[in-house]
């Protein structure tokens, strides 16, 4: 019985210690930054993803410079968790909410709640669906249509007026980024270089293995000899497509190959000559400008509906330049 009483006492002690720790930690975090703006940033990723890891520091830096007290959440791409975090944010009555939708189709109730509470919302990285555009102040992030178009411009230059048959590997079917990049690419080749024709297209689902499989299938179905080029909607998938070529004994270097990303996977492929061109998507630009746009809205300055990340082309000529050093 003595043992049990002692046990109970010790357990209670442990619990109390935890409580004090909780209180200490909480008060420490809550007390800083009483002046300036308070902003909630509802993100679906953070230090758990390569993109988020390089997105966050420039964002926090920009916030510190602007005197913004930034509270960042990470819903780990769980739309329900993000919705709950949105409710928490609205209850905290910040001056503004920065939203990176975990799933764009599900954020309408969050935007409505913020509007009802008179909290402005800006969107970063992935835009809301067109029907919800009226509920947000501004969007900053990649111009997914423009990225597809820029990748097509590289393709047109490489094709140089000659008839060129290419394969197309798209992103996940139905995904907004995938739809926009495809459209940007197709519109641009139609306008600038009708000599480039798409022989076949398949979704590679942003996945290297899937891309390798579908590229292989397309090479077989249209006949590898007819294929002079490949466009893939991101660097991960282009790496899969290049592997598919190699697996069939085809040297990727003479082929015209373009993609989007300039990631740590894509940049070396440019340098090795296997990939001819890609479009730089800068995670640090993305993080920094999320706050830049928010600050303008907070100060009542006018903002454009969209602040697009410049779609910088990366080819063998500039792949080593520090300005396009891959970030993620």
């Amino acid at each position, binding site marked *: 019985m003595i*043992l*049990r009483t*002692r*046990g109970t006492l*010790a*357990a*209670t002690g*442990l*619990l*109390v210690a*935890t*409580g*004090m720790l*909780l*209180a200490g*930690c*909480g*008060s420490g*975090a*809550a007390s800083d930054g009483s002046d300036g703006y308070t902003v909630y940033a509802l993100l679906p990723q*953070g*230090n*758990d993803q390569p993109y988020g890891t390089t997105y966050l520091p420039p964002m926090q830096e920009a916030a510190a410079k602007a005197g913004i*007290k*930034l*509270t*960042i*959440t*990470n*819903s*780990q*791409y*769980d*739309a*329900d*968790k993000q*919705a*709950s*975090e949105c*409710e*928490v944010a*609205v*209850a*905290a009555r910040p001056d503004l909410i920065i939203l990176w939708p975990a*799933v*764009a*189709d*599900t954020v*309408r*109730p969050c935007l*409505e709640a913020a509007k009802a509470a008179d909290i402005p919302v800006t969107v970063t990285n992935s835009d809301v669906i067109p029907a919800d555009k009226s509920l947000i102040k501004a969007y900053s992030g990649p111009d997914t249509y423009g990225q597809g178009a820029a990748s097509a411009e590289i393709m047109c230059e490489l094709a140089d007026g000659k008839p060129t048959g290419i394969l197309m590997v798209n992103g*996940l*079917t*139905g*995904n907004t980024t995938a739809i926009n990049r495809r459209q940007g690419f197709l519109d641009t080749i139609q306008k600038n270089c009708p000599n480039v024709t798409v022989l076949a297209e398949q979704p590679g*689902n942003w996945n290297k293995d899937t891309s390798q499989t579908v590229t292989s299938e397309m090479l077989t179905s249209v006949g590898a000899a007819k294929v002079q080029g490949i466009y893939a909607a991101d660097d991960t998938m282009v790496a899969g497509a290049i592997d598919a070529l190699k697996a069939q004994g085809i040297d990727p270097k003479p082929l015209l190959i373009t993609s989007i990303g300039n990631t740590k996977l894509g940049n070396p492929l440019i340098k090795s000559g296997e990939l001819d061109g890609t479009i730089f998507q800068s995670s640090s630009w993305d993080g920094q400008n999320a706050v830049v746009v928010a600050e303008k809205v907070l100060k009542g300055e006018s903002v454009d509906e969209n602040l697009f990340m410049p779609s910088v082309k990366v080819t063998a000529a500039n792949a080593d330049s520090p300005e396009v050093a891959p970030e993620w």
Partner: protein
Amino acid sequence: MNSTPTLSLGPATTDRSARLRAALARRTEWRGLALLAVVVVATLSFEPLVFTAYPVTLGRVALIGLVALGLTAVILMGELDLSVASTLAVAGVVMASIPNVALGIVVALCAGLLIGLVNAFFVVKVGINSFIATLGMLFVLRGLAFVLSGEKPVRMADIEAGIAFGAPIIGPITPRVLIFVLVFIGLQIFVTKVRAGREFYAVGGNRQAARDAGIPVSRRLVTGFMLSGFVAALAGVINTMERTAADPTAGSTVLLASIAAAIIGGVALTGGRGSIVGTLVGALSLGIIEVGLTLSGVQVDVQQIFIGGVLLLAVITDPASFRAVVGNARSFLSGRRGETPA
């Protein structure tokens, strides 16, 4: 409330305080309650907004707790249902794919019951360990959610109905919280007052003894898995209504949070011990901690450290493991004391 059946026999004593102590020791929630008290006091001191904005906090508790309540029915029998999060996703996609909201809800809930039945079939008839059977179902159902949805979020046909559903109905209380409370009351009555529910404890405590006592063990297991599937599907329906769209990736953080809520509330994974009240207490603690830390600007990585810490604390303060820890420490110390020269 205080008639949770357990297999342990209280000490035969007439001493009032001893009786009280025995009654308290039989309860499995006291650690959870103590923890909750600490969490509430700590949160009150650093982030009172958690309580002034209580509808938000209750919403988070309901989000974490609903699936956990259904899961508790299975855990009480010493089994596990790892497929709950995938069930949630499938139910949501099924519901959103059907233009008629009412019909969608009915079909989605039936899908949940069916999934529970399939889980039970593998565990009871085929004899696969529930961890493995439901792990398989976790993958199957997640894949199914993607196939049914065409790999993209499915928007509800009637978005206004969804937005209306997310609005408070009784004071600031939303339908989500109300349904959570009703499910809690229903399950609590079931496992304490209804014979079939009370027998869950016997099935989890000692299955052979339960069989010998004439308890239809297989039927109880089927009931448990169907309850778990149904409640997970219900959570999927609520999420879809509130979000106005079903996401095939939904529920990615649900599974571990529900197991954590049950454990913090004193539900033993080995079965036979624990209660629905305990899971509620666990969900309350988790929800308050999460909302409090989010409001204080604590990053999700640090939040996970806290939640992990609370979980471990809840487990090591279990009387059995704590006695073991204290006993080991004492023998270690007395051993050391013996070594020191006099």
